């Protein structure tokens, strides 16, 4: 028997739901990454999950992002489209937020560290202390494993099932 693995994309996704028996659906903060990305501006970092200081951010990658960096490792999972990640050294002493990523001015991104080109499925390390940027010629969707930072957007009431 041939099986079909059902993935999803910005153009084609189906959303499940919380069927309440005796509960409040808000307890489950139920959302869909593709729906969130479809409503987001390019490179907005919208939290779709939060566990104390840690978050998962849904990002609509479209065009080329600014340079960013974090004091800790992060990861980026490409869920739709193709994304090119470019990594550079970070100017010594450039301030970084305690948690999450912060913007990095062009002049603080130094020499090339490496590049990754990822289509749907790859998990890419965004290494601590390195500048990185994302580029995608067409809308793509990325899930970032990180810590809540200055640019993390919290929109639970807009993105989650409430009834």
């Amino acid at each position: 028997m041939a099986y079909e693995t059902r993935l999803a994309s910005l153009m084609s996704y189906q959303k499940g739901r919380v069927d309440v028996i005796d509960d409040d659906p808000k307890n489950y903060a139920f959302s869909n990454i593709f729906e969130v990305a479809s409503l987001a501006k390019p490179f907005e970092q919208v939290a779709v999950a939060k566990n104390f200081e840690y978050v998962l951010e849904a990002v609509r990658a479209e065009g080329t992002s600014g340079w960013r960096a974090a004091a800790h490792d992060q990861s980026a999972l490409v869920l739709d489209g193709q994304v090119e990640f470019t990594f550079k050294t970070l100017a010594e002493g450039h301030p970084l937020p305690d948690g999450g990523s912060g913007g990095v001015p062009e002049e603080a991104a130094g020499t090339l560290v490496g590049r990754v080109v990822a289509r749907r499925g790859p998990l890419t390390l965004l290494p601590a202390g390195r500048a990185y940027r994302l580029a995608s010629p067409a809308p793509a969707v990325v899930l970032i494993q990180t810590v809540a930072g200055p640019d993390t957007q919290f929109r639970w009431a807009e993105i989650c099932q409430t009834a």
Partner: protein
Amino acid sequence: MTVTGATPHGEVHEPNEFGYQSFSLGEFHFSRDEYFAYVRWPTGHHVMSADAFLRALQRDVAWEFFYGIVNFDGVVGTVNHYGTVDLFAGRYNDAYRRAELDHVENIETPVIKDTFAAILSDWTNEGFDPFASPEETGSAFGPKNGDNDAAITRHRVTARRMVSLPGDEPLRDDDNGHPVNRMFADVDQDEPEVYAEPGFEAEVGSFNLFAYLSRSPVTWNPSVVSVCRESLYCPTTEEYILPIIHGNDRAEWFVQLSDEITWDVEDRDTGRKRAKVVMKAGDVAAMPSDIRHQGYSPKRSMLLVWENASLKIPQLISSGKFPTQPVEF
């Protein structure tokens, strides 16, 4: 409820007529025959199908009692206190509690782990793999017939930084015994293009997580593939039914990467039904810290389980300093 105060220890007893050893752990007694596993304690007794018992036991041993509560079913299970473990019967079952027939023993983790590992080894017959889907394993039933220690002690992936980085957990391929699963034959196996400047090879890394998961030989076994401080990505492939009912001591999050899973959600302490959560590819949902859940996956699916491994969390939640749901809005 009865609670044993002394430090329980494990004992092994001679094989019965079916060839299986029985085991004592404090005042709990475990035995099996051709079809069933039996659990006895001072105020009651319980029976489970041997295959279901072994599938649950396998996870409890491999996960070192996981986060919070591992319910083998609605009656017996364990609670992880991260150094000691409660072995219980009826503790999280409203009827047993009201009838005062529940029983709990707190046991040093190495003692219960060794005893559980010994039960798993003795009761798992050749050809039965408790981690495999029912379609991909032999029978758990019948009189004792050899063992399958290679399957029940397989390596659990725990990346230190990220799978595929130099010195970290390796990728899966045909050559290291990880063929693509029959239900993921259509999953793209291309790896990303990775270019590292000389000297930066340890920092520039990427791997095809979907391809990696398509080659997982086991089901319902979250394994760490990337780390962000105490934030752990623990993806897993799911088919048929989660063999335990996981009771949370912290919120955990699910990101459905492919296909579909239906979760039955119950009150953690009583088993009262609270919700069903249907998750499709791209869906994200929290499992609050006061529930227990069991998943049903009709076709092998990819699930990203996201955990916060901080040891401070259970106390923060149980003391009321942090709510049971991870976000409020």
